[in-house]
């Protein structure tokens, strides 16, 4: 279409402009600008009132700017928040590695399966996407509980004498994250692996090249875009995950998403919550840019 743009009449140009402008403005107003408000309010003091924070414009005499760095100072002095950030990074990182270790061979296996089984397996990966995230996390509560399925089974088999504490531990959080985000890892991996000519690799193997060598030298490097896209699709949302640590995690496994939620809804300290969100966003800027790069290279999402 761009080749013809010089010949377009005013009305046609208006349509082209509308196609870009309508979604652009919507995202600008409702997605980008809100971060500005988060930043602004992170420099305010909490106060009793509606809204519960001090205005930026107007100090005590109603003129000039009023802002404070207290929230950030508190964030970095209070061990709870530092600990939560680090813990979230650790949990998200380990979960991403686990997703990759399970998801890569699954994606490879699906790519090697013949039609129509390939389509069926792919559908089975996509299906959990469409089913409620909340309900899928909830499903683990019945499995992991003190009198849940796993403990009952182990007791019945005589492998344990007392129920194990699985629920409300970090282990349960890892399990929940890997379970919920596994399809996000498999689909981009499958998309890149599907395009590789796996038969060629098999042929190389038949001609005497060691399979491990072929995998390390050819398949793995070529599937790197899928690995990165999939890892970012798991890692970034997992850092700020709330539902999984809230339902499956213990009180000591405070991830930053849950800390923010509780600061906001229970302590009602909006400015501090905004500061927590701002720092989290800063941590995520680089991973999001990496994701965007590979998302573009992949030519679309896979959800």
């Amino acid at each position, binding site marked *: *279409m*761009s080749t*013809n743009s010089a010949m377009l009449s005013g009305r*046609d140009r208006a349509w082209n402009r509308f*196609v*870009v402008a309508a*979604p*652009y403005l*919507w*995202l600008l107003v*409702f*997605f980008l*600008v*809100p*971060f500005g*408000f*988060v930043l602004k309010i992170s420099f305010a003091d909490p106060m009793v009132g509606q*809204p519960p924070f001090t205005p930026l414009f107007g100090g005590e005499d109603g003129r000039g700017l009023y802002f404070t760095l207290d929230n950030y100072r508190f964030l970095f002095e209070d061990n709870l928040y530092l600990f939560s950030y680090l813990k979230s990074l650790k949990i998200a990182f380990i979960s991403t590695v686990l997703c990759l270790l*399970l998801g890569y*061979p*699954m994606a*490879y*296996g699906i790519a*090697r399966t*013949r039609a129509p089984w390939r389509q069926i397996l792919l*559908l*089975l*990966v*996509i299906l*959990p996407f*469409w*089913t*409620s995230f*909340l*309900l899928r996390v*909830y*499903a*683990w*509560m*019945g*499995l992991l509980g003190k*009198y849940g399925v796993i403990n009952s089974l182990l007791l019945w088999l005589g492998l344990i004498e007392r129920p194990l504490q699985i629920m409300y531990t970090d282990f349960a959080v890892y399990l929940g994250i890997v379970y919920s985000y596994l399809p996000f890892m498999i689909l981009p991996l499958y998309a890149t692996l599907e395009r590789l000519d796996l*038969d060629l690799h*098999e042929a190389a193997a038949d001609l005497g090249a060691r399979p491990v060598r072929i995998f390390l030298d050819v398949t793995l490097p070529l599937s790197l875009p899928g690995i990165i896209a999939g890892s970012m699709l798991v890692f*970034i*949302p997992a*850092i*700020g995950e*709330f*539902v999984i640590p809230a339902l499956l995690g213990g009180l000591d496994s405070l991830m930053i998403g849950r800390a*923010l*939620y509780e600061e*906001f809804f229970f302590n009602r300290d909006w400015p501090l919550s905004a500061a927590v969100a701002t720092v*989290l*966003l800063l941590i*995520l800027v680089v991973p999001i840019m990496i994701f*965007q790069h590979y998302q573009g290279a992949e030519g*679309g*999402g896979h*959800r």
Partner: protein
Amino acid sequence: MRHGPSTFLISVLSFGFAFLYVPIILVMLYSFNDSRLVSIWGGFSLKWYGELFKNRQIIEAALLSLRIALVSATAATLLGTLAGLALARMGRFRGRMLFTGMIAAPLVMPEIITGLSMLLLFVSMNEFLGWPGDRGATTITIAHITFSMAYVAVIVQSRLAATDQSLEEAAMDLGGRPFGVALDITIPTIAPAMISGWLLAFTLSLDDLVITSFVSGPGSSTLPMVIFSKVKLGVTPDVNALATIIISIVTIGVVAAGWIMFRQERQLTRDRQLGARG
């Protein structure tokens, strides 16, 4: 010669799919369990379904969620389709970098950040503009449109990227107007993508908990909010029944859609082959 997957791959696949499906299947089984405990099978019973339909709070929340999902999915499909067209067909335009960023970021942005930022936007807008008033269905709908339109945009964009642009170019060369060409040629080509985009936006809206919790007000509890407040304290059998209903509807929908698309693709390839021969 093509080898199938090795024994190793088959075992990983079996383990992986068991991991993905056993928890869901167990929840569906418990929903028919007469006993409240998951470890004891008290016999087959439909009593939790009965209890579910007697629960006014759940029914009202479900109706509110459905209303919001219908409106937000439709708006998200319109905006997302335009965004997909802009990305795939409009070439370079000013601010394209920022635009692609704003489409990609909502796909990974932790919901807790999006939720808080939208709430602060609504509060500040209300202070300065007197709109959107109290938080409730309107603010929830706006928030849902915003995060789900990015998914629609990505689906539509990848469909457009995969289709041949020459038909549109030919129509333009023959004097077609951009709007007319979009309506007559582009939209029919991407209709399947728009439908799956709408369905995805609909289910995302029905499912969202975190963003909704931030932008909802008193008296506007959606279904996920009610479910969350119930299950926070542990397993509840009527939620098992609800999960069974939701999962069954989704499964039937996805399998049906997958089957229809599979058939359409086959028909399309057959038509193309015939066309090429003729």
